[in-house]
Every structure is written in structure tokens, then in C-alpha cells.
């Protein structure tokens, strides 16, 4: 297959994508037992009990917090929350599944028929959410190859039974980019709700995609493949781009698309077949007899809706309205709850100027310099050593002219690394801007004396000679002088010379 040949005809095809997203929920305990749900890098099988190990005789008990989180997500995604819901058993054998079945939800999920909006080329596009249901995570297999070359696997059940929310979209996305935007928006909502860590690279947020292609104008869906193992937003887009091109090439070559599960191989940038439909499991779903069906009280829904935090879309709109931010700045800040919180805390802690000008400065620094530093250090807002009030102090100092923007960047870099408050750095290092007129006058006199040519130019009426002389003062002061302050002093001295 050659992708170049395929891309030549790619515009004849439409790509159809639906996503199945799984997120672990940030509950204190597991879905059906009281074991801790946060296992991180703890020793294998250190967060287990008879229930999540599937011992004979154990019974599950529903984690109310997990249900509440699910309902929060349902409300945030504009879903219907049916009054009746139940759990079902999904039967299959695998060593990471201790009971031989997964407790999941089949025909009566907690949430149905919602949607999520993405921003694409300045337009808002609505992507349908078919359902969101609650289930339990599986354990993990660790594959070992010992010194003798023998391979074996070990089972770690710390993850088994962690609450897992599955959110299934309609096949409404028409490009890999839309799929990535959907994923990013969904993550933003989950993080804003405080129900998910949103960490794809750690597997707490996972994405499977159903993708098919069809000739433009065709209304019937093409045969789909399911793509698994995409561990980043970038991987989602890349994998889907590859898979769509692969399918187009197959069709162009006169072959049929086989309905199958394919895995994304990040290192090679390709998808490979894992399992065809014929090998697929018959999960033999049936109602979980150990858990009675649930009635989701309308009062509970109302109460949860009342407590729902502000979501990214609403926050973006508020940022534009209140702080007069550009749509782009607002979107970037509002998309991630910790970033948005940090931004607002910074604006609130700043003391100079009106709110929109404070917001503008905070947005510029947060989206610019600070984002650059975080990227370099592979950090997130949550990891920042510089506090919002620390940043506010720095921005105030710049606004007051105490330090220049250039100095500000240097100070921020140091504060970012050490965690010391920017204002403390400014004071200790004496990098405050020269604003003492007497000192500045001394520098101006020196520069004028050393540059007779420029003085001559000025006297002939060449005003850009002043710019040259300002630059010289800046050099002499090693950047501590502010051009705005130097200019009147220089002009005053030059004019005094001419008058002589």
C-alpha cells in the first residue's frame, strides 16, 4: 500500500469516526469494594481484598460516589438520565479479570443521548454522545522474560475494580482532527468536573475509535475497524489519519475492508490487525443478580446539577465577556481547569490597572512564557512551583516599571526552577529597573560625552539619533534602565547642549 497513491483520491472519500472513551473515576475506593482506588506505583497486589480478587463467596456493593460522578458527567454532556438503571455481567475469560466476568451496564446505562460541542475553524460542531455507563476496570498483566529466556506473565490486581466510566460517541466525527478535538474537549470536561485525572499516558483516560470511510455522497456507512492502543491526543489523530488512508487504499485497490480490531503501533506509525469479527467474544450479557436495579431519584439529579462546577465552554464565554480576552486566549485557558483556575487566581492577586488589562497580561504570560517553560520541563500547571500570587507580583512589577519585560522573563525562569517568589528574587538580586533620575542623568551624560557624532546628528535634526543614544544607555545599565525614562532625560541634556 502506498499512502501517496491513496491521498491523491482521498478527497473523494468521507471519513466517519466514533469514539469509545474510558476514564477511571477519581473515587477514594474501588467500584465494588472498599479497597483504595489510587494505586499509582504501589507494590503489585497491595490494594486488593477478597472482593476485587474474585474469591469464592464475595459480593459487590456499589460505590455511590462513582455513580454520582457518572451522573455529573451525564449532566455535563447534556444526557438523559433514565430513572431506572441496572448492572449486567459481561462474560469472558482473561487472567486480568478475576471473576471471569466484568460488572458493566448493557441495556440500561446511567446516561443516554447527550452531546458535546467542539470548536473547529471558528465554527461550533455538535458530536452526539450515545451513552455513558459505569463498569469496573480489569487488573494488569506484567509479562516477564527471565534470564533463561522463559516467558511468563504475572497478574497485578491493584487496578481490578477501579471505577471505569465508558463514554460512547455517535459516529459524528468526519476527520481525525475532529476526533482529537472531541477527545480534548471531553478530557477538559472530565477534569473540570474533578472526576478524572485525564492522564492518557498513564492509562487513566483511554480511547478506542471506530473508523470507516465511504465515497462522498454515500449515505450507507462503510465497514468499520476498531482502533485501540492510542495513548495520547496526538496518537489519536495520527492513528486515525493512518487508518483512514489505509482503508481508502484498500478500497481503491479493489479489496474489501474487514471488520476487525486493529492496534496502533506508535513506534512504526501504523495500525496492525489484532482480532477479526469472527474471533470476537459472545459476552453473554445478563442482569447482575448480586445488585438490585437502581432507581435514580430525580431529587438527586437536581441536587447534583445544582452543584455542577462551571464547565469549559461556559468558562470560555465568561473569560471573553468579563476579561475581554480574545477567543483564542479564552479557549486555551478555559480548556484545562487547573490552568483556568491559575489564570483567575493570578488576575485576582494583581493590584495594578483595570481588570481587563491585568487579564491580558496574565493571559499573555500564562499562554506564552509559562507554557513554554512547562513544555520544556514536561510539567503541568499542577506541578508549578510559581504560585498565582507569585506571578501576579511579577506582572505588577513589570506594569509598575520596576523591571523590564526582559528582566521579567529572567526572573520567571528562576522562580520556575527554584520556587522562590519573583518579588523576592527582584529584591535580592537588585535587578530592579533604574528609575533614580540622578543616576540616569549620570549615565546620559557619559553616553553623550562618548558619542559626539550622534550628538551632532541630533543637532542636525536627525531624531533617530536619540534612539541610538537610548540604546547606548541601555547597554551601559545592562538593561536596567527603562527607555521611556531615559528618553526625556537624554533630550533635555541634548537640548541644553544645543542651547549653549
Amino acid at each position, binding site marked *: 500500500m502506498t499512502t501517496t497513491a491513496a491521498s491523491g483520491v482521498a478527497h473523494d472519500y468521507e471519513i466517519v469516526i466514533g469514539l469509545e472513551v474510558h476514564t477511571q473515576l477519581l473515587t477514594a475506593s474501588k467500584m465494588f469494594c472498599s479497597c483504595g482506588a489510587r494505586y499509582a506505583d504501589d507494590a503489585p497486589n497491595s490494594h486488593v481484598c477478597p472482593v476485587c480478587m474474585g474469591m469464592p463467596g*464475595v459480593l459487590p456493593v456499589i460505590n455511590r460516589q462513582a455513580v454520582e460522578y457518572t451522573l455529573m458527567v451525564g449532566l455535563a454532556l447534556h444526557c438523559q438520565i433514565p430513572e431506572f438503571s441496572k448492572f449486567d455481567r459481561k462474560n469472558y475469560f482473561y487472567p486480568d479479570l478475576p471473576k471471569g466476568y466484568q460488572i458493566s451496564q448493557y441495556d440500561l446505562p446511567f446516561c443516554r443521548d447527550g452531546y458535546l460541542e467542539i470548536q473547529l475553524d471558528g465554527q461550533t460542531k455538535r458530536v452526539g454522545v450515545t451513552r455513558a455507563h459505569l463498569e469496573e476496570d480489569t487488573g494488569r498483566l506484567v509479562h516477564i522474560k527471565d534470564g533463561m529466556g522463559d516467558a511468563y506473565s504475572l497478574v497485578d490486581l491493584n487496578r481490578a475494580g477501579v471505577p471505569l466510566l465508558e463514554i460512547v460517541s455517535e459516529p459524528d466525527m468526519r476527520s481525525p482532527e475532529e476526533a482529537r478535538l472531541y477527545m480534548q474537549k471531553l478530557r477538559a470536561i472530565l477534569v473540570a468536573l474533578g472526576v478524572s485525572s485525564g492522564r492518557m499516558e498513564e492509562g487513566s483516560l483511554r480511547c478506542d475509535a471506530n473508523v470507516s470511510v465511504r465515497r462522498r455522497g454515500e449515505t450507507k456507512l462503510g465497514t468499520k475497524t476498531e482502533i485501540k492502543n492510542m495513548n495520547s491526543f496526538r496518537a489519536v489523530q495520527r492513528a486515525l489519519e493512518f487508518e483512514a488512508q489505509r482503508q481508502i487504499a484498500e478500497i481503491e485497490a479493489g479489496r474489501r475492508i474487514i471488520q476487525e480490531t486493529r492496534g496502533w503501533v506508535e513506534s512504526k506509525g501504523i495500525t496492525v490487525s489484532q482480532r477479526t469479527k469472527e474471533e470476537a467474544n*459472545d459476552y453473554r450479557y*445478563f442482569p447482575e443478580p448480586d445488585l438490585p436495579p437502581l432507581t435514580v431519584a430525580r431529587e438527586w439529579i437536581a441536587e447534583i446539577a445544582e452543584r455542577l462546577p462551571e464547565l469549559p465552554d461556559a468558562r470560555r464565554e465568561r473569560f471573553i465577556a468579563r476579561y475581554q480576552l480574545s477567543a483564542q486566549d479564552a479557549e486555551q485557558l478555559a480548556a484545562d481547569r487547573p490552568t483556568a483556575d491559575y489564570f483567575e487566581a493570578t488576575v485576582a492577586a494583581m493590584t495594578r490597572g483595570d481588570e481587563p488589562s491585568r487579564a491580558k497580561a496574565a493571559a499573555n504570560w500564562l499562554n506564552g512564557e509559562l507554557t513554554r517553560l512547562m513544555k520544556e520541563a514536561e510539567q503541568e500547571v499542577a506541578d508549578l512551583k510559581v504560585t498565582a500570587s507569585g506571578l501576579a507580583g511579577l506582572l505588577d512589577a513589570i506594569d509598575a516599571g520596576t523591571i523590564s519585560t526582559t528582566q521579567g522573563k529572567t526572573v520567571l525562569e528562576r522562580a520556575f526552577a527554584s520556587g522562590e517568589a519573583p518579588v523576592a528574587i527582584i529584591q535580592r538580586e537588585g535587578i530592579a529597573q533604574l528609575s533614580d533620575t540622578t543616576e540616569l542623568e549620570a549615565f546620559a551624560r557619559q553616553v553623550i560625552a562618548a558619542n559626539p557624532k550622534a550628538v551632532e546628528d541630533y543637532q542636525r535634526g536627525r531624531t533617530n539619533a536619540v534612539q541610538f543614544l537610548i540604546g547606548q544607555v541601555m547597554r551601559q545599565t545592562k538593561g536596567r534602565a527603562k527607555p521611556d525614562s531615559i528618553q526625556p532625560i537624554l533630550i533635555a541634556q541634548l537640548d541644553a547642549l544645543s542651547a549653549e
Partner: protein
Amino acid sequence: MSALWNLSIAEAGERLRRREITSVALTQAHLDRIAAVDEQVKAFLTVTAEAALEDARAADKRLDHDDRVTGLTGIPLALKDVLVTKGVRTTAGSRFLEHFVPPYDGTVVRRLREAGAVTLGKVNMDEFAMGSSTENSAYGPTRNPWDTTRVPGGSSGGSAAAVAAGEAMGSLGSDTGGSVRQPGALTNTVGLKPTYGRVSRFGLIAFASSLDQIGPFTRSARDSAILLGAIAGYDPADSTSANVPVPDYVQALTGDVRGLKIGVPREYFVEGTEPGVVKVVQDAIAVYRELGAEILDISLPHTRYGLAAYYIIAPAEASANLARYDGIKYGLSVREGADDLIDSLMHTREMGFGPEVRRRIMLGTYALSSGYYDAYYKRAEQVRMLIRQDFDAAFATCDVIISPTSPTVAFKLGERTDDPVAMYLADLFTIPANLAGICGVSIPGGFSEGLPVGVQLLGQRFEEATILRAADAFERVTDYHTRWPTLADTVAKPKRKSTKKLV
């Protein structure tokens, strides 16, 4: 002079509380009785003699100091080996769990402990509670103390036989389709299946989760009331347990059944039931009439579909419940000669499960398969709803329903092992109560050709007090429940058979 092992729980309890006897003596008497007769009965899989005596010493201390004394403090009991016991191997009658020692106690086991009861050991059963004769145990059959060439019923045959033979003052079994009531009937013991949700299932190795219920075996209705009172009640660890107050069941035993409306369902008196059994039930009805109860003719029209629905629902649930036995976490694991994971899994399950368990896993798997679900499982659930409605309608006009417990008396060992359907018919009259979730008790109603016949009394959900009152009233005017089987004391051997582990 009566031996200590043939006292009732109520009598022994009183004597313990008066400090006329000690729990240690009572427990030792039962350990001696086990040593004397279990060679013939084969009720016990595991005798925990040392732990039992330790329990007894602790109970005596409590009794001495009048500290947390209950009706069960110091009373030696046996547990069906489907009840999970911390530190004591729990086999569920299966080869798969031959060496399985659970790390936790089930809720009823904990409640018995808290009540101060003494556990003598674990008793035999059909593998994973699947069967009606205890012949499906991987550890050999238990024998009926009334005729050791016959079965004690099942699946809780060990629990029934131990109580009938005087090896325990009471025991716990589990009833999914009749597994407490039917062996109760066949061994002249009182076997009670509580309302679904009355007793916590946490720590009961699951057969069919929506039908399973733990119930007591005793030699009187009063003892049944004492035992039920100790194990009943809401348990947050079992989401299907009911948050309904537990009445004082012993207080309910007034002996008065005047005006009690007893329904006689015509569908339970059909051809195929042994005449000797029918006669005993009719005599029992006459006794109740004489005691002042009102006898009503009633109909439970969907009874005939019960067995079929049960043999869809129970295996379907079992097929999932038994999926955890994969040889990876605990229990049997066959790895030799296995090519891969799936191969090892299949070998393990083939070796670990007996034929009846495998049959039911296959039945259940089939019933749930894609394309068959609606025709089998869904339809069976609809039948279940109809049966439930039958009982609701019946209980609108009567308080108790009376019927035979089993269509036959105890059958011969091996008589039905080659004919699963004939075996399934043993539960014809008991299954509907499980499908409807109501309570039922089998009481010693009389004898047919020297073998015990059970009379089944069914009650509405959470009406255990009513059926126990009726059972107790019957016992007050009859002596069937006081009769003992004849078992020759074999000489107590210094050491028990190696298959019976002393833990």
C-alpha cells in the same frame, strides 16, 4: 439417661445457661458422636475438633460471666462446606477447591461466632450445591442415617444427615431450589429456607445468586427459630439482603393456629407423587384442621413451568458464578501439558469440575448465548414473574401453603445418578418458592415404609414467624420430629480417615 448429643438446642441452651452442663462437655459429646457414627453417615468433610473445643471454652467463659449470652452460646453446629470460613478449608464439595483455605469469614459465620456458637466442622454437599442427593460431591456421597443405603437428599445432604444422626445440634445449609427443605424431608429434620434477602449471602459460595439462600437444619421448629434469629438480618455487604426488622421468632411460637388460613394448592397433588407421601401430607392437613386452622383449596397455575424456568435461570447464573475458577488465583491449576493459557484453563476446569457442574455450566452458557437469550433466559424470567404473581395471589387469601416437600421418600444411592432429569424432579415442589423469593420450611410429617416424609409449609416474604408458628404447633401434637434413626455405634477409631482433615 439421655446423652448430651440428643438434646435440642433449646434444652441444651437452658442447661448451659443454668450451668448444669458445659459447652466443652456438650462439644466433646458431639465430637465423640461424630467419631462413633460418621464412618457410616459420612457427613463431615472437615472436623475442626481443636477449634471447636476452643470455641466451647470461650463459650463457657461467656456463660460463666453472663457475658453476651445468646440462645446459641456454647451450642455445637455444623456448616455446609459452601460457607466460607477463615482459616478452615472450604471445598464447596469440589475437587477444584480441595485445598482452598479462605482468608475471610462469611457474614453468617461471623454472626454465629459473635453469638458464641461452636463450629464442629464442615459438612458434605453436592458439588457447588448442584444436586439433590449429595452424590455429586467430589468427596463421596453422604448416607441417610435412616437407611445408609439411601441418599440424604441434597445438595445440603451433609448438613441434614449430621443433624439427623446427632452429630450436630443444628447446621446451616443453602437452598437454591430445595437444597435445605428436600434433605430436611428425607432425614426427618426441620429444614428452613428463609425469604430471599432475609439472610446475608456474603461468604456463601454462589451457585445461582438470585435464588441462593442460607437456611438452618434442626430437630425442632423452636431450634430453627433460634438459629434463624441468629443469622437473619440486613448486611451492607450483601446488596440483595433486605433491610427489614428481624422479629423474635421464638416469641412467635405460640402454639396457636386457630383461624390460620392454610392453602392446599391442587397443582402440588398430582400423579407421580408417592401415595405414602400424599397420605402423610393429608394427615398433616387433618391435624391442622383439628387445631382450628382453616383449610382452603387454592391454585398456583404456573407451577408446572417452574422446573423448566429454574433449569434455565440457575445454570445461567451458575455459568457466570463459576467462571472465576480458572486456576489462576487459587484452587486447582493444571499447567502440565497445557500449550497455552486457554488450554490450561480448559484442563483445569475439566479436572476441577464434576459432570453435573459441567453440564449446568454448558446449559447456562448456551441459554445466555447470542441469539438464544430471548428464547431462554428472558422467557424463563417471565415465567418466574408469573410464578411470583401466583404466590402473591394465593397469599392474598391464605397465610400458609401446605404441600409435600419431595414427591418421594429417600431414594437409593446410585438410583438416579444416570438420569439427571429424574434427579431434577426431586425439587419439583421446592423450586417455585426460590423463584418467587418466598420462605418455606420442611417439617417431619410422618413416615412411609419406615422412611421420613417431609411436609412443606410456605409463607409470604418475611413471614418466617408464621410458618415456624405453624410448624411448632404441629410438633406440639405429634412426635415424628422426636424420633431417631438407628445407627450402630462403630468403635471410635483413634485416628480419623486421612480424607477428613483435622484442621
